[in-house]
């Protein structure tokens, strides 16, 4: 079922679909970044497809795998009337890190895109208010990038041991303090 959808997509947008593959029954199409809006709109409105639900949307960072381009944004579409699914992917280079927004097509895209911006720092062109959703505005960087250290915390409340450490530093004492419970 999903296979036919994929085939129709390839017929309709032969130049926009860069690559397709199926793994464990998940049909995937890698499409050109600029076309994603048009493609998704077509998938949503075309009779017989009607992929009315944007089930999920996320990004992947392939830093360790050394892929180029480094990021991928992944869309999972689902057709409530016809019960078929399709996965779309667009590749995002690190230099020009932005993707057209789908906020106009699906209501949920608004928050999902905000989350991707929050976690990966991928900009969405045309998004109404692209700001952090899970983390706080004071947070610097994007934690789900592979080069963000897992345990680099950015506290909002100053820790007492930090204050103590600063005082010690000012007075020229060693920095490493024994702290019960460990000041991480």
């Amino acid at each position, binding site marked *: 079922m999903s296979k036919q959808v994929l085939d129709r997509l390839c017929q309709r947008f032969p130049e926009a679909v860069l690559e397709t593959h199926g*793994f*464990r029954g*998940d049909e*995937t199409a890698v499409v050109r970044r600029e076309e994603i809006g048009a493609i998704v709109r077509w998938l949503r409105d075309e009779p017989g497809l009607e992929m*009315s*639900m*944007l*089930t*999920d949307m*996320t990004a*992947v*960072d*392939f830093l*360790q*795998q050394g892929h180029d381009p480094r990021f991928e944004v*992944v869309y*999972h579409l689902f057709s*409530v009337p016809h*019960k078929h*699914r399709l*996965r779309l992917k667009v590749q995002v280079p690190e230099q020009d890190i932005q993707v057209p927004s789908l906020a106009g097509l*699906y*209501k*949920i895209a*608004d*928050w999902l895109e905000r989350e991707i911006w929050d*976690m990966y720092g991928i900009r969405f062109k045309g998004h109404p208010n692209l700001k*952090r*959703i*899970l*983390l*706080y505005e004071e947070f610097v960087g994007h*934690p*789900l990038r*592979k080069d963000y250290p*897992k345990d680099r915390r950015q506290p909002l409340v100053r820790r007492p041991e930090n204050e103590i450490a600063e005082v010690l530093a000012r007075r020229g004492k060693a920095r490493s303090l024994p702290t019960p419970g460990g000041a991480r």
Partner: protein
Amino acid sequence: MTTTDRDLEAPDLTTVNMGPSHPAMHGTIHIKVGLEGELIRKAEVNIGYLHRGFEKEAEAHSWQQIFPYTDRLNYVSPMLNNVGYALAVEKLLGITAPERAQYLRVIVGEIARICDHLTYMAAQTMEMGAFTPYFYVMKGRDWLWDLLEEISGARLTHSYVRIGGVAWDLPEGFKEKTLELLPRIDTVVVELDKLMTRNRIFLDRMQNIAVISAEEAVSYGWTGPCLRGSGVDYDVRKTHPYLVYDRMDFEIPIGTDGDNMDRYLVRMEEMRQSARIIRQALEQIPPGPVCTDDKLVVIPRKAATYNTIEEMINHFKLVIDGIRPPVGEVYSYTEAGNGELGFYLVSDGTGRPVKCRVRPPCFMGMAALERMITGHMVADVIPTFDTINMIGGECDR
């Protein structure tokens, strides 16, 4: 805490902050409403207060080690998350659990679903001021937790499911206990029904409040009880049957007008259906192994591990380097308490996921909350928020 705020500031609006720590905001969430009198003109929903970096942790652990983290996603029904994650990894590996394990997963999953909906009822009613049902519900939930504890050894965070099956078989006399318990659970549901469903005040605060049309619900990516409350017939267990749900005979309750009351009634009915499923599963469950014997997936028995070098190496490599799925990506979805719980896994062939994305059902609900409460009274925020049944661990991950 009442403060005026800049970005919601308009000449005629009073801004009220509800949360992050608020009696009715189970889990921490922040709703900022701009009021005109008691009418909500503007609203802004802030989530993320319970963002604990699930995905970052998952990327730092081996495939098996992620189970305890999935427990704490939707911590009202941990078993369902276990099952969902296990199915995702099995899809990635291209293996299937033995039949008995699949039945066990159905059984524990449906018990967890009842717990989930009972907890929802407790929150819904208590936060609307009706404290009595809370005690009825807690009574019932503790009974169910006793069952799950007998199976898994833990009251709440079970980690009972394994990749390729489940940890161990049912304890002695489990079937009898469950069959004896289910009627008592039904009575709890009936009591709840009698207490609330025809209660005048309850109805006033639930009926025709926060109506969401089917189109809107779909566009918001709703799934599960909320979507069905809006009259859309979509339940993963029916449309894409997984495990052995295709052998079960059960109904999917559908709402009509998509208001708070429908979302409440759908859950009420689902508890009864889950009980049906459990009964059938307990009847049908075949004997047999509860886990695959694939050496590359399941760690060997302790006795063999400690006495032969082959099993020792096998155990060692599975624990240290972890399971090595093939390179690839899968999106696997199951019906959790709040709807379609999806896992999008990307593997590069090493023992750790490149990406372990959770598709949180109630995240979609929260996205719609702003639209749902705008135009209603400030008192309607609480019941509306409750019908979404937002679970912090799942929504913020």
